[in-house]
């Protein structure tokens, strides 16, 4: 019968890496090139990221007149799914009163800027992960993670509609546009995140 301490020790032992036969280290490889590594393998600084994101958002406004937003399109996706199962979202008062673009004839996923950037963001992140050879499927490890995903997703969706946007549309586009709601949103999301941190520590970790 193993002693408890032995178990603990056994638990801590890490698998030793198998000798790397597949990689021929004498051969110069593309992904070891300094420029490639700096751009596509090593992480960028937060500052670099923030500035590039802001410049991309500016380019979006300059070219299309509308800035980066994420969650309005998620409401569209929900409505289109509802339509696909036989519902009629065009009767929702929300779209008539708040987002009339949804009811415009010929409007669809491929013509919605937010849907295109949303899909682009998933694919772009996948592309970056693959280019760095860092893509890996990360499994859900516990029931708490499932509960966190379900609850967090629902609350975020509802909150984003009430605030007319999210950390992108309200904060990253609204605030620099000099709309007052961006500033109000920034204070509110910070307070919500602080409360969420307390809940996270208490119930979800």
């Amino acid at each position, binding site marked *: 019968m193993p002693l408890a301490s032995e178990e603990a020790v056994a638990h801590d032992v890490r698998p030793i890496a198998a000798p790397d036969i597949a990689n021929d280290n004498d051969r110069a490889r593309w992904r070891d090139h300094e420029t490639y590594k700096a751009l596509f393998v090593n992480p960028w600084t*937060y500052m670099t990221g923030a500035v590039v994101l802001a410049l991309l958002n500016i380019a979006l406004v300059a070219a299309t007149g509308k800035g980066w937003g994420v969650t309005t399109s998620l409401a569209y996706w929900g409505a289109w799914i509802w339509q696909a199962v036989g519902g009629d979202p065009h009767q929702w008062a929300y779209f008539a009163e708040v987002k009339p673009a949804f009811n415009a004839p010929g409007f669809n996923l491929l013509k919605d800027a937010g849907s295109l950037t949303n899909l682009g963001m998933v694919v772009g992140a996948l592309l970056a992960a693959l280019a760095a050879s860092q893509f890996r499927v*990360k499994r859900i490890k516990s029931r708490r993670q499932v509960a966190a995903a379900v609850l967090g997703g629902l609350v975020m969706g*509802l*909150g984003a509609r009430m605030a007319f946007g999210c*950390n992108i549309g309200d904060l990253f586009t609204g605030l620099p546009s000099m*709309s007052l709601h961006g500033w109000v949103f920034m204070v509110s*999301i910070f307070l919500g995140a602080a409360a969420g941190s307390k809940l996270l*520590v208490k119930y979800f970790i």
Partner: protein
Amino acid sequence: MTTLATPQSIRRPLRAPAVRKERASQLPWALVLLALVVAAGFYLVRAGGSPKFAFIWAIGIALGLTLQRARFCFTASMRDPVLTGSTSLTKAVVVGLAVGTVGFSAIQLAAYLKTGQLADAMKLAGLEPVGMHTVVGGFLFGLGAVIAGGCASGTLMRMGEGFLQQWLVIPFFILGSAIGAVTWPIWKAAFHVQPKGGVYVPMALGGFAPALVLQFGLLLAVYLLADWWGRRSARRAR
């Protein structure tokens, strides 16, 4: 002898780095995906009837790439000051907001100078109604994002990185958004929402100059506050 804990070692638990076999190159897959991305761009131009849609698609790809490369997480920028005391992401977000202000205000100013009407500049702003609903919605959003482990951009980025948790978040995020849209008459009445009730600061203050002074003044104040908080937390951790 004791080792001094640095903020770095507090965030990442002290342990020997795991010996890992270098992963096989995924570059071929990246190239295949890149080809598909370009093909999708051509398809979008045909389907939408305008090169604009390929441009938007390309911006989306670049946004996802940037988010992943910089490990940029808005949720963490709001959560870390509370949870770990780190504000490096928070400061980066503020810098991003300042850069955005420079670009957006230039675009708005150009529209204003063309016609002399602030209303024309306002059309280019990401203006939305503001009120109690912004406070409640923002609070709920921040709370949900921390629990779900990612905000709007973070969820989409992590889906691309292969996090199954975020693939579980997204259907409920969409469901929550749809519920928010369907229940609009209820919360519209509860919070007295004016659908056209946005406040464009240059309009409210009577011009660009006072609005920009206020904007950059506030951003600087937030930056300095975050910087002070980060230093204070690092000192306390020692």
